[in-house]
């Protein structure tokens, strides 16, 4: 699934300036626990989280995950945006809950890993 398509599904807004047109999402995980995210080793994945801090972005960088949805419009700080832009990571803000976003993505063919 392309990010453009995903945005419409989750009422999402991209807050970073990285180019996301070529990113094709196949797998998803929802977690607020970064150690959990670090065990997720597949390409083309997306994280859905309620945790909005610098370590969220660092974790994505180490895990090679290029896209994250921050659920329930948590405050994305300028530092997070700056780091995400530097690392070519796309941050999407969504007003929906982690539960709702996960359900929508699952229904639309995004696969779980475990």
């Amino acid at each position: 699934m392309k990010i453009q398509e995903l945005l419409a599904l989750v009422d999402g807004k991209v807050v970073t300036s990285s180019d996301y047109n070529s990113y094709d999402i196949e797998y998803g995980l929802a977690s607020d626990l970064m150690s959990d995210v670090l065990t997720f080793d597949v390409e083309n994945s997306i994280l859905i989280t309620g945790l909005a801090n610098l370590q969220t972005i660092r974790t994505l960088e180490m895990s090679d995950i290029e896209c994250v949805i921050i659920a329930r419009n948590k405050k994305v700080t300028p530092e997070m945006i700056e780091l995400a832009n530097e690392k070519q990571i796309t941050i999407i803000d969504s007003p929906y809950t982690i539960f709702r976003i996960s359900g929508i993505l699952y229904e639309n063919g995004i696969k779980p890993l475990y």
Partner: protein
Amino acid sequence: MMQFEYKVEGGDFTNAGNASSEVKKILKKLNVSPKITRRVVVALYEAEVNIVAHAYRGDIIVEIDTEKIRIQLNDEGPGIDSIEQAMTEGFSTASEQVREMGFGAGMGLPNINRNADELNITSEIGKGTNLEIITYLNKEN
């Protein structure tokens, strides 16, 4: 052989991950495979966060040769009471602040172990902890 050194400050969550990020850049430049790079930086990042979360300060020394990447993390801190217990998934002594950052669920050392070809830990109570993480470059896992 190449050697790189980084300093880590305990409690400095803003900069936690800087060393791991630098190492990732270096490995990419050296054309290390994405799979091995990922294993190295995930292990290193968990270990770097451990220093920030538990120690007062620490040094990270990364040595790269044609066969392997050897990372040493030496910290000054409270040390680990029981390494066996610390290696158990779910065991954690992390503070509320660490948990708020998305860590502290007792997965750090098990994650490091899973991503390392060799892991050696020594620790002295009241002094600090030393980790050695070795990853072989010619061994795809």
